[in-house]
C-alpha cells in the first residue's frame, strides 16, 4: 500500500515550474528520503502533500486522501516538521506540548515525557530562547508524541551540529516501526545511514526512486585499464555515465551494474582489455554522478 502517491504533479509559480510531472510512490513502512539539489522542488512537493498549497495540475494522495482535502482531523495521523516552519516562539516548550495535547486523541503523555527526556528539552524555556537545533527537537517531539502514521520532515538536519542530528535520527528511527517516514534532505551522508528508499528530484522531476540498497547495488565506479593508450569509442551504452580517459585508463559510472553483463558490455565496446575493476559508490558519489550527468537513469 502506498502512503504517498503523486501522479503528474505540476506546480507553477507564475512562469517558474517548480514541479514538472512528479510521480512519486512511497510504500508503507518506508523511510523514504527525497534528495536533490537546492531548488529541485523538494519543499514544493512536500507543501503540496501537506495541502499548504495546491498543485497547478496532477494529483497527490496522502494516506489514501487527496492532498487537497487534507486538513483538520487528517493531521492527527501526520507529523510534519520543516526547517522553515514558524513555530509559536512566544510559547514555552511545556506550554506548546500542553496546548497541542487536546488536538490529538492519540497523544501519548508517556511518549511525550520520553521524547522530552531523550531530546533533553527544557519544558520551561521559551521556543524563542532555544537554539535552532533545540527548536527542531521541540518541533519533532510535538510531531511524534501522538504516534503519527506518517512523519514528513522537510530538510530537518540543515544547519544542525552532528550531535543534534544523531539525536533526531535516533528519535526518528525509534518511531520507524510504527510510522512511514518521508524526509527531504540534501544531507546525503545522514540519509544513507537510515533511509530505506531514496528518490532523486532534479528540476521538478523525479530522476529515480527506489530502495537504497538496490540503488547502491546498481551503481559502480568502473575502471578499465588498457595495455596501450586508452581509446574512447564513439558510442557507449546509455547506462554508462561520466566517461573519461587518462593515459591507459577509462573510468565511468555504471548505473545498472551487473557483474557479468557489465563485463560483456565492456568487451563489446573495447574488445580485450588488461584489467577491469568495479568499486562500490557512496550515496553522495551516486548523487554527484547523477547531478553531473543530468540525465535520466531511472
Amino acid at each position: 500500500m502506498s502512503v504517498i502517491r503523486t501522479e503528474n504533479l505540476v506546480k507553477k509559480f507564475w512562469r517558474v515550474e517548480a514541479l514538472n510531472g512528479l510521480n512519486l510512490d512511497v510504500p508503507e513502512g518506508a523511510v523514504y528520503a527525497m534528495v536533490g539539489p537546492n531548488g529541485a522542488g523538494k519543499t514544493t512537493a512536500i507543501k503540496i502533500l501537506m495541502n499548504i498549497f495546491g498543485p497547478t495540475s496532477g494529483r497527490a494522495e496522502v494516506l489514501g486522501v487527496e492532498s487537497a482535502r487534507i486538513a483538520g482531523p487528517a493531521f492527527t495521523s501526520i507529523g510534519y516538521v520543516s526547517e522553515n516552519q514558524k513555530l509559536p516562539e512566544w510559547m514555552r516548550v511545556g506550554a506548546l506540548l500542553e496546548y497541542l495535547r487536546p488536538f490529538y486523541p492519540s497523544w501519548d503523555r508517556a511518549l511525550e515525557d520520553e521524547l522530552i527526556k531523550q531530546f533533553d528539552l527544557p519544558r520551561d524555556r521559551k521556543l524563542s530562547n532555544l537554539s535552532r537545533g533545540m527548536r527542531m527537537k521541540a518541533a519533532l517531539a510535538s510531531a511524534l508524541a501522538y504516534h503519527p502514521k506518517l512523519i514528513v520532515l522537510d530538510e530537518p538536519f540543515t544547519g544542525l551540529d552532528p550531535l543534534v542530528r544523531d539525536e533526531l535520527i535516533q528519535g526518528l528511527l525509534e518511531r520507524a516501526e510504527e510510522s512511514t517516514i518521508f524526509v527531504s534532505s540534501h544531507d546525503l551522508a545522514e540519509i544513507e545511514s537510515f533511509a530505506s528508499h531514496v528518490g532523486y528530484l532534479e528540476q521538478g522531476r523525479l530522476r529515480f526512486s527506489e530502495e537504497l540498497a538496490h540503488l547502491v547495488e546498481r551503481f559502480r565506479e568502473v575502471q578499465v585499464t588498457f595495455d596501450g593508450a586508452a581509446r574512447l569509442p564513439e558510442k557507449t551504452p546509455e547506462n554508462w555515465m561520466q566517461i573519461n580517459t587518462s593515459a591507459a585508463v577509462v573510468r565511468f559510472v555504471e548505473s545498472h551494474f551487473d557483474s557479468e553483463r557489465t563485463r560483456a558490455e565492456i568487451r563489446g565496446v573495447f574488445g580485450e582489455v588488461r584489467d577491469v575493476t568495479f568499486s562500490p559508490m557512496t550515496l553522495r558519489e551516486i548523487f554527484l554522478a547523477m547531478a553531473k550527468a543530468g540525465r535520466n537513469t531511472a
Partner: protein
Amino acid sequence: MNQILNIFRKDLRRFWREIAVSLAFLAIYAWSEVRIWTGERSWDSVFLHSGLPSAMVLISWWFLITRVIQGEPLVGDRQFWVTRPYEWNKLLSAKVLFLLALVNLPLFIADFVMLGKAGFPPAHYIAGLLWMQLLITVFVTLLIAALATVTASVVQMGLSILGILLYAIAVASLTSEISSADFASTRSPWLTAALLIGTALVVVLLQYARRKTLLSRCLIGGFAVAVVVIIVATPYEAAINRDYPPIGAGEPPPVGLALQPVDPVKPGNTFYGGDTVQIQIPISVSAMAEDSIVIVDGFRAAIESTGGVRWNSGWRPASNTIFPEEQRTWFLFTMKKELFDRVKSSATKMHLTVAFTIYRDRSRTEFVIPQGEFSMLDVGLCTTESPLQRGLSCRAPLRGPAFLLVTADAANSTCPPAGGENQNERRGIARAWDINTSSGPAEFGINPVNSFYLQLRPSQGVDMNWARGAGLCPGTPVVLSGPVRERSNRLELDLGELQLYDYRMGGYDAYGGDGGIMLGTHH
C-alpha cells in the same frame, strides 16, 4: 468545543497585554464621559480632550483584533498551525468567541454602566445596547478582522490602512467631480455598505476555510473597483427625481421663494477658492404655513447667459432649515473662475431646483426652563449649567431625538444682558433644534449617551444684535415640539435674469439691510 476553548485560552494567555491595554482605554473613556454627566469635569476640558479616549479605544481594538486574528496567520505558507489538526470552523469560532468576550462584552458592560451614570435606567435599553453591539461588530470588528485575515503582520495591516485612506481620499475627490454625486451619495449609502459587509464576510470565511489569500485580496480590490463603478454609473438625477417628486399639479408650494435683489457694495471684492468662485444667492422666504418647517436637503442651480453659455451646478447637498417666521435664506455654490469670467457681466437667467422635506409642527408643549438638571419631553436630560451658557446641554439614551424643536420669544428670555445690550430691545422668535436622520434603535458608536447642545438662533432676516444676550436660561418660557416628517418634494424656481458678478461671495453685504445670518450650504 474543546478545540475552541483550547485556542481561546491560548489567545487569552498570549494577548493578555493587548487585552489589558484595550480594557484600560475603555475604562478611561467611560470614566471620562461619566465625569461630564456627574459634573466632575468641565466642558472646556471635554472640548479639548474628548476625542482622545475614544480614539485610543478604537486604536487598541484595532491592535487587539489584528493580533488575535494574526495569532494563527492566514497569509503565507510557513505557519505552524496549518499542519496541525485545527478545524477551520472551530478556529474561526475561537476567534469570534475571543472578540465577543474581549471587545463586545466589555463595551456592553461599559455602555450599561455609562447609561446608568448618565441618569437612564440601563435595563430599559437592552435592545438598543445590543443594536449598538451589532453595529460595532459589523462596521468595526468585522472590517478590521477581514483586513487582518489578508495581511501577515501589524505593519502590513498598518500599510493597508494607509492605502485605504488614500483610496478614500481619491474616491471623495472623484465624488466631488461627478455632478450630483456628493448629494445623492450622502442619501443612499446602503448599497455600498451592503457590498462592504458582504465582501468582508466572504473574505473572512474564504480565508479561514480555504486560505485563498490572493483571491481574497482580489475580492477586496473588486469591492474598491465596484465602489468606483457605483459612483460613476449611478443615475443620480433619476434617483433624486424619484426621492423628490415635483409638487403635485395645482398644489401650492409649502414655501414661497424668490430672488432677493442685492445692493453691490464691494465691487472689487471676490472670494476665490483656487480656480473657483463662490456664488451666494439670497432668497426671500414667504407664505409658509404656521405649522410647517421646510428643510432644504439640496439644490441645483442652472444658468443660461445671453451669450448662450449654459451651465448647471449639479445637485448640491444643503441644510437650510426654514421656519415660518423666516424672511430669507441663501444658496451657496461654486463655479469655475473661467466660466464665471465669461458670464459675470452679462445678463444671466438663473433657475434653481430645490429638494426639500416638509415637517409638521403641531404637537407643542409649553415649558419653563427650570434650574439645574431636568427631564425634557421624551428626549432625555438637559441642564442650563454649562460654561457655554445661554443654551441647554442635553443627553439622550442611545440616540438623539428625531427632531426636537425649542421655540422662544426673545423678549421673554431670562438670560442676563450681554455687555452693552439693552434687554428691553430683545424681540422676535428664536429657535433651537436638533435633528437626527439615522434610523434604528441606537446610533453607531461606543457611547450609549447622545450629547447635544441647544442654542437659540434668530430668524433669518432680523437684527443680528438680537442674538447677543437672549438665550435659554432658568425661568425662560419656551415651546417644545417634535416636528414630524411629512414628505419630500422638489420645487422649480425661476429667478429671472441677474448678473452673477453681483452675487459673488463678498460682492455684497449679506448681513446689511435687514440683516440675518446665513445658514449656509455645504458642498
